[in-house]
């Protein structure tokens, strides 16, 4: 009896450890290689061997300067800030209008948003490209900003769900005091939506930081590299220099790891809410 339980527990932990090794091993190899000198990396040694010098940060310096990571970081931050503000405003305004007002075409508006969730944006890119060009923003940072802001329907749902839990009595009280709808939205609804805003910012922030396709398609200029496209460009010039590519890769993953460790609780909740919707 106890022997069987012990065996079951052993197998359970064995499977967990094996799976963890499978997850960590590819990342570990890249981390170790980022610390090697170029002679070490090309010598064809075991990729999991310890680097000669654990504090060899030279590759990171090369990756950061030659890979123009500073500019990429700036471009990504620029896009992030405007796209996040846009997403929060658009999502919360939609939720406010739909949840707090009665109007004739409400069902139609909701249906328009609902049907849009079903359209995978990757398929319509052929035609979206035209819209972006017609607006004259192709090849600028405003192309991704507009696209991230304009196509986030998940945010609308997160706001809508949260809006329902804010008592309408608060709006009524403010209205009796003479507040207009804009004051109610700006002073009462938006501040109370803070937890939903945090969720949207995290979900959307991770998605924008990681997105490759939109900046690749709309900002081919090297000056407009984002984190993803700047890293992608390592492929050419450093094709054989895995120690530099690895350093660039580690530089990109590190902020994600820090954010994950600090905001774990919000991330699990937010990302699963985003995926299910």
């Amino acid at each position: 009896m106890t022997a069987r339980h012990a065996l079951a527990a052993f197998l359970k932990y064995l499977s967990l450890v094996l799976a963890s090794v499978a997850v960590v091993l590819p990342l570990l190899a890249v981390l170790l290689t980022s610390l090697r000198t170029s002679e070490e990396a090309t010598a064809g040694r075991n990729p999991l061997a310890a680097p000669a010098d654990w504090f060899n940060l030279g590759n990171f310096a090369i990756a950061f300067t030659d890979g123009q990571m500073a500019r990429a970081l700036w471009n990504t931050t620029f896009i992030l800030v405007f796209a996040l503000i846009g997403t929060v405003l658009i999502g919360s305004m939609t939720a406010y209008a739909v949840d707090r007002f009665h109007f004739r075409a409400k069902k139609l508006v909701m249906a328009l948003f609902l049907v849009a969730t079903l359209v995978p944006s990757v398929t319509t890119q052929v035609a979206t490209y035209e819209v972006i060009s017609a607006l004259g923003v192709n090849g600028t940072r405003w192309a991704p900003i507009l696209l991230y802001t304009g196509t986030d329907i998940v945010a609308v749902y997160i706001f809508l769900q949260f809006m329902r839990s804010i008592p309408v009595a608060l709006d009524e009280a403010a209205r009796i005091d003479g507040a207009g709808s804009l004051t109610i939205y700006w002073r009462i609804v938006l501040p109370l939506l803070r937890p939903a805003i945090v969720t949207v910012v995290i979900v959307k922030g991770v998605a924008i930081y990681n997105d490759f396709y939109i900046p690749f398609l709309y900002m081919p200029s090297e000056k407009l590299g984002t984190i993803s496209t700047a890293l992608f460009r390592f492929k050419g010039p450093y094709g054989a220099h895995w120690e530099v590519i690895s350093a660039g890769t580690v530089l990109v993953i590190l902020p994600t790891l820090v954010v994950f460790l600090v905001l774990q609780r919000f991330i699990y909740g937010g990302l699963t809410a985003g995926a299910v919707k």
Partner: protein
Amino acid sequence: MTQRAHVPWLYLLVPLAFLVAFTYVPVVSMVVHSFTDWDGLSRDREFVGAENYVDLFTRPQLFQVFAVSLFYLAGALLQTGLALYFATVLSFGTRLRGLFKGIFFFPYLINGVAIGFVFLYFFQPGGTLDTTLAVFGVQPRLWLGDPDLVNTSLAGVSVWRYAGLNLVLFLGAIQSIPPHLYEAATLDGANRWQQFRHIIVPSIKPIISLCVILAVSGALSVFEIPFIMTGGANNSETFVIQTIKLAFTFNKVGLASAAAVVLLVIVLLVTWLQRTLVPEERVEQS
């Protein structure tokens, strides 16, 4: 009263403009393009009827790209199974639960290009995978260079990336099962397998089916990982890579639009199937 009727529209004006400009206009113009021979550049385009669709379905490459998505579909099913197993294991009083959950979930957050590089290095000849497998006496192989193997390798990367998301979704669903159900089952002498089979699976069935459906539409629209890692070379071209190449490399916007319309219709069909097969009630909280 009449004065207030326009108020909601003031708030909806910008959101609706965005929605129309970036979702509905592209969908409509894509459908229109799919019946023309437009090259994406010139001013004039000619109406060619269903020619693009005929062309699309008679291309031998078409079956090739659908065959490729079968690898990702198989990967997604494996991933669902793995996630289900580990979610169950982690929900039965396991030590270091948070740590394991964190390790499994983290890949989902990583930048796609970074993942591409991590695995280009991992699969290199004489790289991490070959070295590790050599310990068990497995011969080195061309994980990305062998046309018969490349899609399995790439689908494996996809499993690595997304299994953690499924795991966290399942774990959340399992935790919302009332604990007294297990207690009652234990009193009745049910073992772990029976608890899994008769309590856990029925309770999280909707979320499992959701994951399976997401797997189908996901397998059809795979793009990032193969595009970054192989560029679609060597037998690894997917439907979306093919569409993008038709539109932006070969300037066949008409044909690419037809391909995109076909994909859109398939995805809508699959989603509709899911909504009809699985009752709506549960999606509320997870």
